[in-house]
């Protein structure tokens, strides 16, 4: 049993930790905003995915600052960053690395051995640009890295340096010669974010910042250790049972066989995996911490449900033919699923 004094102390510590989390995250986002014009929601979601230990798939036409966002994030976090431009002829070894024969010239003796040459994936933040232009074989090379945080080449497994964060982009317009990500690959991404074109004011700001003589410099506001601490704090956030039940019911309702929603029954082929629920819950926790709260709310669940579930809800032929989007299906879910279950 904790003594009252200790309890008060621990309460103060927890409150301070939450406050520090909020402050650090705000500083990170502010730093990103110094270079990035607009897209604050995208930046916040990317930061959330980073803190949740997940990955982000950015979808948008070229030139919207996707790459700039990732580079800025890497710079602000003092993390290593690598960029891989995915092309159809890109091979898995080009991403993961390969074993090379290395000769060691020692006096009187010459030996040859295989030495693993690390690929660009061995970085804290990896930008997989236009990931849908690589073949499924190359895309699948990212599976283990994204989920297990490790790379296996031959019989050797190489752990990736934590935090490992993959930010992939894809262009939704140019579909010729592309390979849409398989469902298993999509499921690895915590969020799928759609990057919209900037507005008029934002465009003005972009021109002022990028066509002038001074380029805004990005300071490093968070170190790797602090980022890992923040990740750990996210995992400690408690969740009330009704809130968790709401997330579970939302994810459950994405499955046409069990969903009470007519749109889901009609247009959805497969619903979200449990990874979707995990993503929703972690993101909701981060949302609560960003707001200085100690537990997520129903509103947090609703706020993160769309980016966390939209790439996990796969439409059937009817949905494709009718032009229904997964966003519309999830919107119907959020509108029709009650926050508190009748059975509760």
């Amino acid at each position, binding site marked *: 049993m*904790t003594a009252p004094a200790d*309890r008060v102390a*621990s*309460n103060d*510590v*927890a*409150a301070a*930790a*939450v406050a520090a989390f909020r402050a650090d995250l705000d500083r990170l986002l502010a730093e990103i905003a110094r270079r990035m014009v607009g897209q604050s929601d995208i930046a916040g979601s990317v930061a959330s995915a980073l803190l949740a230990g997940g990955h982000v798939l950015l979808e948008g036409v070229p030139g919207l600052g996707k790459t700039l966002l990732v580079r800025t994030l890497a710079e602000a976090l003092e993390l290593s960053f690598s960029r891989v431009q995915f092309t*159809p002829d890109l091979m898995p070894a080009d991403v993961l690395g390969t074993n090379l024969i290395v000769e060691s010239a020692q006096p009187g003796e010459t030996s040859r051995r295989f030495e693993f040459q690390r690929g660009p994936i061995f970085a804290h933040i990896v930008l997989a640009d236009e990931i*849908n232009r690589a073949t*499924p074989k190359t895309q699948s090379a990212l599976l283990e890295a994204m989920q297990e945080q490790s790379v296996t080449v031959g019989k050797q497994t190489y752990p990736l340096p934590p935090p490992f964060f993959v930010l992939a982009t894809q262009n939704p317009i140019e*579909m010729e*010669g*592309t*390979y*849409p990500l*398989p469902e298993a690959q999509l499921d690895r991404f915590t969020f799928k974010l759609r990057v919209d074109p900037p507005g008029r004011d934002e465009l003005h700001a972009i021109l002022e910042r990028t066509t002038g003589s001074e380029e805004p410099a990005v300071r490093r506001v968070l170190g790797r250790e602090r980022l890992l601490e923040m990740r750990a704090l996210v995992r*400690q*956030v*408690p*969740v*009330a*049972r*009704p*809130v968790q039940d709401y997330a579970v019911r939302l994810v459950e309702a994405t499955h046409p066989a069990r969903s009470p929603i007519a749109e889901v029954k009609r247009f959805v082929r497969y619903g979200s995996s449990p990874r979707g629920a995990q993503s929703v819950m972690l993101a909701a926790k981060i949302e609560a911490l960003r*707001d200085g*709260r*100690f*537990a*997520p*709310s*129903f*509103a947090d669940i609703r706020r993160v449900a769309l980016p966390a579930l939209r790439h996990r809800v796969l439409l059937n*032929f*009817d949905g*494709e*033919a*009718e032009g229904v989007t997964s966003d519309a299906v999830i919107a119907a879910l959020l509108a029709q699923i009650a926050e*508190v279950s009748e059975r*509760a």
Partner: protein
Amino acid sequence: MSDAAPLLTLLRRIRRRLRLWMAVEGAVAGAAAGAVALAVAVIALHVAGHAVGLARPLALLAGSVAVGALVRGARRVPLASCARFADAALDRQDRVLSAFCLQGDQSPLARALVRDAVERTRSLAPGGAVTARRPKGLPALAIGALVLAAAAIAPVRSRAARLPVVTPPAAGVPLATGALDVEREEARRAAEAAARLHDDQLAALAGELQRTLRRLAAGQLSDGDALEKLSALQREVAEAAAQAARDANAFEAAKKALEGETATRGAGEVLAAEDADAARARAALGSAAAENPTETGRALSAAARGVASALGTPAEGGDKNPRRLQRESDSSDEASAADKKGDAERRLERLQRDLGDAASACRDGDPSCRSRAEKSGGDLGQMGGRGASAESLRQLERALRQMRDRLGRGEMRSGDQQAMRSFERAARGENGQPGQGGQGQQEGQQRDGQQGDGVGTGEGSGEGQGDSVAEGEQSGGGESGESGESGGKDGQDGRDGKDGKGGKGRDGKGKASGKGKDGEGAAAAQGVAMLGERNSVESTGSSAPGEGQGNGAGGPPLGKRGDMQTRGHETEARVVNGAGPNRAEVIGGAADRGFAQHGYARVFADYQAAVEDALATTAVPEGRRYVVRRYFDLIRPRTGKSTGTPR
């Protein structure tokens, strides 16, 4: 003491207030339901004729309020729900709910969560969490109250109204006493005449009329049936009267012929006597034939010519008419009348032939002269009797016609209807003055001071009393028509019926008929408007459509929607969403029907193979491959062998 204790205390207080409000809402809902139920009960009781007091309804309402409040107020209210109310009063971030659910969690963040919730709810009162609001059932209560008020002011059905309504049948209504006195008198006279003249036909007709009158008076005959009966009887009487008139003419001619010869003058006088009968006529003519056969033969010959002249043209064509009537009577209602007419003519022809034969026999000194003369005398006597009943038959026919008219206008029914008609006429100012006979042109005085001329012709009865039939008619141009009056009031010995009374007033048209002892006739009067005080209107009796062109706007050339009358019936067509089938349904539906085209299966196989090659050799995204294959799967020919397209 737990950190969450203040929070739990607050939640319990919120729960108490929540229960209170739920009880209020339940009371309102119960009151609404009770009001509606009470309204239904009140309406039912009022219809049943029972007055509803105040105590029971109030008790019922109070009971429904109490039941509603108990049902809603006793429902279980979880503290988690109260926590949601508290969160709604704070910032809707579910801090209280999370703290309540995680109060047992000892992790630092959970404890911090509870502490944060307690701090934030320290200033929150239960009234702030559960604010006073309008009960949801208030509109229903208002509606229920309105329904109840309407039911309360609905009139209670009286005891008399609850008695079963007995609608008097159209048939079987007894007539007022004295309504058929005139007809009864006529029937009685006819029966007496029949007995006096030994006319079986007249006796039968009089008896039939008396039976009809009895049934009508006793209510055993409806007006409609009575009208039909009287109509048939009138036709029959009219036929009999016509035959009798023809017999009378023939009889008169024969009698004059007999009176013209010295030998047969006695027989003629016998026939002319009122109490003459066939036996005396037979004897008189037989004796005349025995005493002076030549002169008797001449008289009989003259009588035969007289009968022939009475027969007239029909007698000459007597052989043809019956056949023609017989042909026409196959499906006609006049068959029996035609037969009777033919019988009468044949009887007269036979009489003419017998008279001729008797005359020939007497002129030729045939021994059968006497017997033939006696037979002819007997026949003439019988014919004279039939002719004597002609007047009675005419009177009977006239009585029947008047009775039909009165019955058709409902004048025989109860006095209420007559009083009502009199009142209506009085209200319209149509009451004319009593008719004055004796002149064909009269002036009428109208109530409103206007004068009208009435020109009438009519017949009056010798007794100065007659039934009158009057009709008033107002033309289109007249302001107020004046009913014509009739009244064969005092036709003095008027054989020609001079005494009618014309209609008076403006645009009035009257018809009058009267009957009397020695005269009969009908009067018609046409009223012409004269200058009046109010309006100087002289109008004709009827309006006619104008000629020329109008300048007003016409109606819609196509008419209104829905005006068109067709033989069909309207059916509302409902379209779901108004969008028809979607693309998936169109494709799927067409596929289900197999794209019923010749050779489709072969073409499909070719195309599918080409598509599979393309999918295998080109870089088509997997998701798009699915769509393409799914499409081909849907459009595959269903009647042929399955192509095994992967789904």
